[in-house]
């Protein structure tokens, strides 16, 4: 059983919703990434989504674009991101880490090489935004025990849902709106209707919902019908506006508040 599966089955037994925060690796600088990851766990994160910075983040809104640019200014590359995960693993061996990013840096390293190094670093899953299931990269990752996380959107057809489900493992990430990360409009009814369909198509893989969740209240509302809540841009904004000294405390207390709201509904 993968670390992601273990996490979701434990949460299911506890009737709790998984909280999945996203931060960009190397933002605001590489020295702070591992401390931020530990702070997220202390605040109640169940899975960490770690962004791999890319020069052309087409699916991201301004907040994560800027985070990516800050990280790239520090020379952050995929190799360093893997080293940061390995460093995180020297202390934390239980919290799953999912790398989220774009295809090109991974393709440039080579899929096999990446898969092997990611496994060795302690990565649990990979979500490549611009990598469609038609390319069948999941089967390259699978022998290394890496889960392939796929996006499903409000525009995904039934037939395509089947194709995605046949390759997805770990969990499915439902993009709760049409738009880039960090947008503000989110249709709760649509999300509620869609989730059972995704679960049915994916043989009960957990479904996480993200893009557009910006406060504890919305997270809590989503948590009523989703297995996981993913929050990215809002946390990245917290990192952006915090001083270096205050960033760990600020991130931890903001995420802890969301955790509290999610747990309050049990």
């Amino acid at each position, binding site marked *: 059983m993968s670390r992601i599966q273990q996490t979701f089955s434990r949460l299911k037994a506890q009737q709790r919703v998984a909280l999945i925060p996203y931060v960009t690796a190397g933002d605001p600088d590489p020295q702070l990434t591992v401390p931020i990851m530990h702070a997220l766990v202390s605040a109640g994160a169940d899975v960490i989504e770690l962004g791999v910075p890319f020069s*052309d983040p087409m699916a991201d809104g301004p907040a994560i674009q800027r985070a990516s640019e800050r990280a790239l200014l520090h020379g952050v590359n*995929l190799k360093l991101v893997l080293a940061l995960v390995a460093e995180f693993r020297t202390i934390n061996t239980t919290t799953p880490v999912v790398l989220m990013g774009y295809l090109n840096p991974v393709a440039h390293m080579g899929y096999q090489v990446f898969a092997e190094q990611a496994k060795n670093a302690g990565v649990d899953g990979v979500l490549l935004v611009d990598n469609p299931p038609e390319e069948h990269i999941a089967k390259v990752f699978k022998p290394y025990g890496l889960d392939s996380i796929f996006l499903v959107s409000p525009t995904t057809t039934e037939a395509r849902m089947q194709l995605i489900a046949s390759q997805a493992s770990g969990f499915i990430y439902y993009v709760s709106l049409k*738009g880039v990360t960090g947008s503000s409009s989110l249709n709760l009814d649509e999300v509620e209707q869609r989730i059972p369909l995704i679960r049915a198509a994916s043989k009960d893989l957990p479904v996480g919902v993200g893009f557009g969740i910006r406060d504890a209240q919305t997270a809590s509302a989503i948590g009523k019908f989703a297995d996981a809540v993913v929050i990215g841009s809002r946390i990245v904004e917290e990192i952006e506006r915090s001083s270096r000294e205050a960033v760990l405390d600020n991130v931890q207390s903001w995420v802890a508040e969301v955790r509290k709201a999610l747990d309050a509904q049990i």
Partner: protein
Amino acid sequence: MPKEDVPDSRGYFGVYGGSFVAETLVSALEDLKNEYQRARADKQFMAEFHHELKHYVGRPSPVFHAQRWSARLGGAQIYLKREDLNHTGAHKINSAMGQALLARRMGKKKVIAETGAGQHGVATATVAARFGMECVIYMGADDIARQSPNVFRMKLLGATVKAVTSGSRTLKDALNEAMRDWVTNVNSTFYILGTAAGPHPYPMLVRDFQAVIGEECLWQMPELAGRQPDAVIACVGGGSNAIGIFHPYLAHPSVRLIGVEAGGKGLGTGQHAAPLASGASAGVLHGFRSYLMQNADGQVIETHSVSAGLDYPGVGPEHAWLKDSRRAEYVAINDDEALQAFHDLCRFEGIIPALESSHALAQAAKMAPQMDKDAILLVNLSGRGDKDINTVAQLAGITLS
């Protein structure tokens, strides 16, 4: 339109192309592909497209024998395909028109586009005005500064021009931002892509709409010169004008096809926009796989060219495929060589060419003296250079008021 073997049903030209987009766009691209297939088979649609090309764009564009310049170069005869004489002054209108007709057919009320030099932005703003559609153009902040006349033209035509300040503030970032708009407003919006790149089906449909350039040359050259040319030369940024003139010539194996990339300050300096000629490796950007200028980490690197329209780190997938198959050759022309050709065409033929097209002209000027006087080079003069006069004046140290 030519019958093509590529791309395959998934949009692949050999190992290049494909569709690498976020999930939200997949169904929109599928709809576009299906609608385009229906439109292409629809005689009425194609008749309307050609009617618009004839009566609105002003096609066919002439082929002109640049006799004085050829004599001066002392070798091959240079013929110019005058895409600069199209309405709006460049080849971009061919594809913008085709895509606008598709947008209307699909019931879309708003069109968006990215632009580098501004020619595609102007073409899109033009067809949007022609068909009464809302129009938003994304343009890099740096390009807005160097192409101000085109920015004003777009505004006159009723378009909203949005400055893109992320990344390198040029064409690639404008494309990112247009994609972000599309993903957000995917149901109401049609993305009129400017070049033969992007996710499937764009490289195919832009090529098909631009192929009118080469199709006309196929009958114009025998009429004017008595035969087909020995070589066809075109500049390549994303590569839409080049693929438009090359594609109908693929069936004529004796005709050399030469794509000219922006060599910027020289391939050796790293400051260029020539992924094919510089031997860049393959990568994935903007929804397709092709040769890509990137660093050792797979990050896309900043490009340089005197011409905003060639300032792009990737290249359309069909060109990558034509390079590998060696059906086409790809070379680079530096900024200063392009500028020399720009001035020569002004002085010897009375034609002000776009700086983009000047790269193709410079390649012809390089080749012609080595060739016999009865050899024939056909250059795609893809656009006119009025938009570039500020850049050229600035390089000469002259300030235009």
